[in-house]
């Protein structure tokens, strides 16, 4: 008789799998997370999860939460969507994010702005400084050209279809997949407008820490950058760790860094005046 020939045996077989460790998995409860950033108490951790190469995750985090994304092995390539969790029709607006801050390169101290004139998140720490707000997500067609296929059920998932699954978990659909931000892979613009990419690989352990300035839905897709020149599906795991933190105070230096940014914070504070 096999191990799974009747419900009793199948139950025992299923239960025997508990406790297995995989490279890509959430820490549950999150307070069991280890290797936390200095000064973070385990009791304050609200989310800890490692995304596989090609993996995705979507999660709601509260205003004030810090979210650290760590490139564990030097070749993580997360694409990021952000929504106002309370009213997801408000979402990250890449064009406004760049235009309002008069700059196309995001890094420490920069803001991620919504389409409603508010700041969704601040980049409070960034040890990478190599990001891309121009080139967006890979899709089925682009991955099929490079890797033979791009299916969610295959070996080479594309970022757009990963986003489709991530947003679906919150009742959102294809129309909600907005222009995204690519972290850790650098795209610069040359004088003729040419996009110049640097995919690394980089030293392991680089990270960015986002501070949620509103209640957010965060969607991550850890797929090779759409312009990654390598023939192989090159991407390594990403760790997402989030912990509770205070709402940004009036004296915060990032809040007050620019007149445009300050007005984005004032609009957030006005939104939560209820």
């Amino acid at each position, binding site marked *: 008789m096999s191990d799974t020939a009747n419900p009793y045996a199948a139950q025992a077989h299923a239960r025997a799998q508990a406790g297995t460790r995989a490279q890509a998995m959430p820490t549950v409860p999150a307070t069991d997370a280890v290797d936390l950033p200095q000064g973070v108490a385990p009791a304050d951790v609200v989310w800890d999860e490692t995304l596989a190469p090609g993996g995705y995750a979507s999660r709601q985090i509260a205003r004030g939460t810090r979210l650290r994304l760590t490139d564990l092995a030097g070749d993580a390539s997360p694409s990021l969507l952000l929504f106002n969790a309370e009213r997801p*029709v408000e*979402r990250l*607006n*890449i*064009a*406004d994010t*760049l*235009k*309002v801050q*008069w*700059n*196309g*390169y995001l890094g420490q101290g920069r803001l991620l*702005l919504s*389409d*409603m*004139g*508010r700041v969704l998140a601040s980049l409070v720490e960034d040890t990478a400084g190599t990001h891309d707000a*121009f*080139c*967006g*997500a890979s*899709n*089925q*067609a*682009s991955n099929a050209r490079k890797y033979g296929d791009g299916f969610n059920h295959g070996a080479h998932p594309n970022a*757009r279809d990963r986003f489709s699954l991530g947003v679906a978990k919150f009742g959102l*659909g*294809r*129309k*909600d*997949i*907005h*222009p*995204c931000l690519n972290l850790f892979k650098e795209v*610069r*613009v040359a*004088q*003729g*407008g*040419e*996009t110049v990419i640097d995919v690394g690989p980089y030293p392991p352990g680089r990270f960015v820490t986002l501070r949620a300035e509103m209640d957010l839905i965060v969607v991550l897709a850890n797929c090779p950058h*759409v*312009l990654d020149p390598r023939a192989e599906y090159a991407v390594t795991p990403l760790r997402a760790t989030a912990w509770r933190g205070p709402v940004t105070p009036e004296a915060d230096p990032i809040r007050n860094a620019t007149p*445009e*940014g300050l*007005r*984005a914070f004032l*609009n957030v504070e006005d939104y939560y005046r209820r």
Partner: protein
Amino acid sequence: MTVSAPPLGTVVHDEVVPARAPWMHTVRAGQTLRIVDLEGNQAVDFLAYSAADDAERYSAQDTIAAQGNVFLREGSVLLSNEGAPMMTVTATAVAYHDTIGGACSCESNTLRYGHHTKAQHACVENFLVANAQQGRGKRDMVSNVNWFMNVPVEADGALGIVDGISAPGLYVDLRAEMDVVVVVSNCPQINNPCNGFNPTPVRMIVAE
């Protein structure tokens, strides 16, 4: 009226869009849409949706990634969010056009200029009004094209809307590669040089 523009075929639609107004029109595969900047330096904010499935729509990021350049020029192919060709820039009398600056909105105007501009008409309002006629809404707003608008990017990443490089009568021709619903805001912005601080009409000609 147009400056040494290539000849168009049979004109099937010809309309002047007033200053500050929205415009929506279905352009069939194979037809060409010519947009004429009648008085010069008038930003034409532009979105396109697949007529067959409007969840497939113009994607600035896919277009930039595929052509390896942030500017739209003659030969640029406007790609959808699924990577499909939607329209091709077959001719233009302006060297390059913008697709990173996005549309002005009442809300972003409060950041860029101050809360005194919140009540001013803006491109997102035009896009919402036009799209609402076909059941689309705010979640259908994505990064758009700005024909005739000039957004240079400096070596340190500095970017911004600066004085235009268009002139009266200059044009851009777009050949539809699929049936597309084109939605336009003839930009009403008066706080930056995208319209020379003076919004003016543009002309839309569809030929086949």
